[in-house]
């Protein structure tokens, strides 16, 4: 969009008047247009009788552009994936933007373009939106909140409360790439590595799983907090223990390198395109085999199992064949150097 070149978002764009409409038309409607996209107070949608999934997430990633995506792509993936984890086909999304005064229009347009592309891939429509502009220094670049509605598929019931002893624990790919990418993109530590975000819309991946069996107990996307946090969450919700095999956890070599330098645990680095799946052991191999065919799950692996002992804990069998507890999720991710 040539006419956006060099322009920036101003407070006037957030005042609700003509300039707000201009911004919406030029940047958002240009990308999101579809018959259901509302110009009124709300979108009007026809619904079938049945169960729907409804979820929201705020995205505040900084920087807003990073290797492998931008905040726009992320904001679609995050909500599409939360719906998918419930076995729900993503149907409709809303998106609410908060933009900092002075934000470059071209960047905003790139964000909207990424949203369009990702939504298309996920088969979901953006039908409602909102745009606010905050004064310089009142928001860091751009924040996006997406909310989604999905149609829960017949016969599927997943929940973090449903893990059962004997379940296999599967991850859909190598872990920690998104968190590592953002860490590097912030340029705080002067480290460079060939890592891109794993950010991806996973409805297709969930469909792959469900094509093998509908008897899946838990599907959860490991986002902030990483796989480790998800595992502790599920161990707690399901009152079971989890035993991991350290050597089975797929981690890209350069992610390991960065973690080594900064004293970080890959299990606690964020992913944005990785599922943690709990399913009866007998189907685990078949699920992984099917996942290996998928675009976003070539590195899928069984990384552990659910146990009766040690409910609420995650135990790791280490490279020396000993057992240790996975340290429970801490707070802020702090590099450890000295």
């Amino acid at each position, binding site marked *: 969009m040539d006419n956006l070149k060099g322009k920036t978002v101003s407070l006037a764009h957030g005042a609700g008047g003509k300039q707000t409409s201009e911004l919406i038309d030029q940047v958002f409607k240009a990308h999101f247009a579809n018959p259901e996209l509302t110009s009124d107070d709300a979108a009007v949608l026809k619904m079938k009788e049945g169960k729907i999934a409804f979820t929201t997430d705020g995205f505040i990633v900084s920087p807003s552009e990073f290797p492998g995506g931008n905040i726009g792509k992320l904001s679609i993936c995050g909500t599409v994936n939360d719906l998918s984890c419930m076995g729900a086909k993503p149907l409709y999304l809303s998106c609410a933007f908060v933009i900092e005064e002075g934000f470059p229009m071209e960047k905003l347009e790139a964000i909207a373009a990424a949203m369009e592309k990702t939504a298309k891939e996920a088969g979901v429509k953006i039908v409602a939106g909102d745009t606010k502009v905050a004064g310089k220094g009142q928001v860091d670049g751009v924040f996006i909140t997406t909310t989604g509605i999905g149609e829960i598929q017949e016969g599927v019931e997943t929940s973090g409360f449903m893990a059962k002893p004997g379940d296999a624990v599967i991850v859909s790919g190598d872990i920690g790439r998104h968190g590592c990418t953002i860490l590097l993109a912030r340029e*705080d530590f002067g480290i460079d590595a060939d890592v891109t975000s794993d950010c991806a819309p996973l409805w297709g991946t969930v469909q792959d799983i469900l094509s093998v069996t509908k008897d899946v107990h838990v599907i959860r996307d490991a986002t902030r907090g990483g796989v480790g946090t998800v595992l502790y969450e599920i161990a707690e919700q399901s009152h079971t223990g989890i035993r991991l095999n350290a050597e089975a956890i797929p981690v890209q070599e350069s992610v390991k390198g960065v973690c080594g330098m*900064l004293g970080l645990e890959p299990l606690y680095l964020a992913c944005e395109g990785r599922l943690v799946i709990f399913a009866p052991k007998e189907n685990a191999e078949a699920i992984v085999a099917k996942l290996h065919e998928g675009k976003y799950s070539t590195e899928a692996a069984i990384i552990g199992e659910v146990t009766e002992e040690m409910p609420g804990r995650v135990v*790791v069998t280490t490279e020396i064949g000993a057992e*240790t*507890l996975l*340290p429970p999720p*801490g707070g802020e991710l*702090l590099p*450890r150097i*000295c």
Partner: protein
Amino acid sequence: MKEQLKKAKAIIEGYDGPPVRVMEVCGTHTHEIFHLGVRKILPQQVELISGPGCPVCVTPADFIDEAVWLALEKNVTICTFGDLVRVPGSTKSLADARSLGGKIQMVYSPMDAFEYAKEHKEEQVVFLSVGFETTTPASCLSVKMAKEAGLTNYALLTANKTMPGAYEMLKNSADVFLYPGHVNAITGNALNKKLCEEEGISGIVTGFTASEILTAFAVLLKKFPEGKPFFVNAYPRVVTEEGSIPAQKLIKEWMEPCDSQWRGLGMIKNSGLRLRKEAQDFDARVKFSIPKMEGRTSPACRCGDVLQGKCLPTDCKVFGKGCTPLHPIGACMVSNEGACSAYYQYNSRGE
């Protein structure tokens, strides 16, 4: 598992000698030992004590108070290793200061702090210079670079420490010491050898990989029953006898020994380093006339005893109750390398 790991593990698991108290002095050893589950394969006769080798753990509360004061009262940008961010001061941690608007910048290296100062001339920048012999050269180097670049907005808040005084103090706390390979890479082995020869204190220098750690245990469990004091450099690919001469020179050029307060252990004579008179322009205490802080720590905290191997973390009344990694009371609970934190995270949640 690799062949060599298996061999070492077999030696360890098969140990049937007399009881032995081993102290890992170094926090990174503490961390790796838990991470690998080494404690789980040690026979009962082997008692493992986590010593004071985590710079975060031994940094007193008033050091944090000084940094918080600089951030909040003097608008100084604090550059620090991530390790220090959650350490409780008397009333506030650096994370608290940050949430009150203080500018706290995490860095990977003191050189990054120098770079930050060079690029932000309008800010006063102070690097929190903690650490043992391994880390001190990097701090000194950052000051050297700042001086060469003519920076007037960069300084160190020093709490650098040296190991010899601590070894001396702890010499009766264990039978064998696991010496920190990276400290010895700088200092060389002379002191450890002397402790062995003159005082009969056994020790082994080792690295931090599974292979290095298990090998060290295998070696010490083979040697200990022989009954003679021993010293082994099990990390020769990194540690030489004389250590790093350039590093030793660099430290001497910029810093001089001073008495130093260790959280938990108290004042240890000549166990610290501070900037020399000639480098006072880079000493944050001088530059900002930091007032004397009365560091208050919780009376319940037994960090001191834990660090000296006098009690286990689990013997502390508040362990796992009032004091957890998310809400630490003592410094040993803050760092991943702190003995209490490692116990809590890997061993038992004190339930």
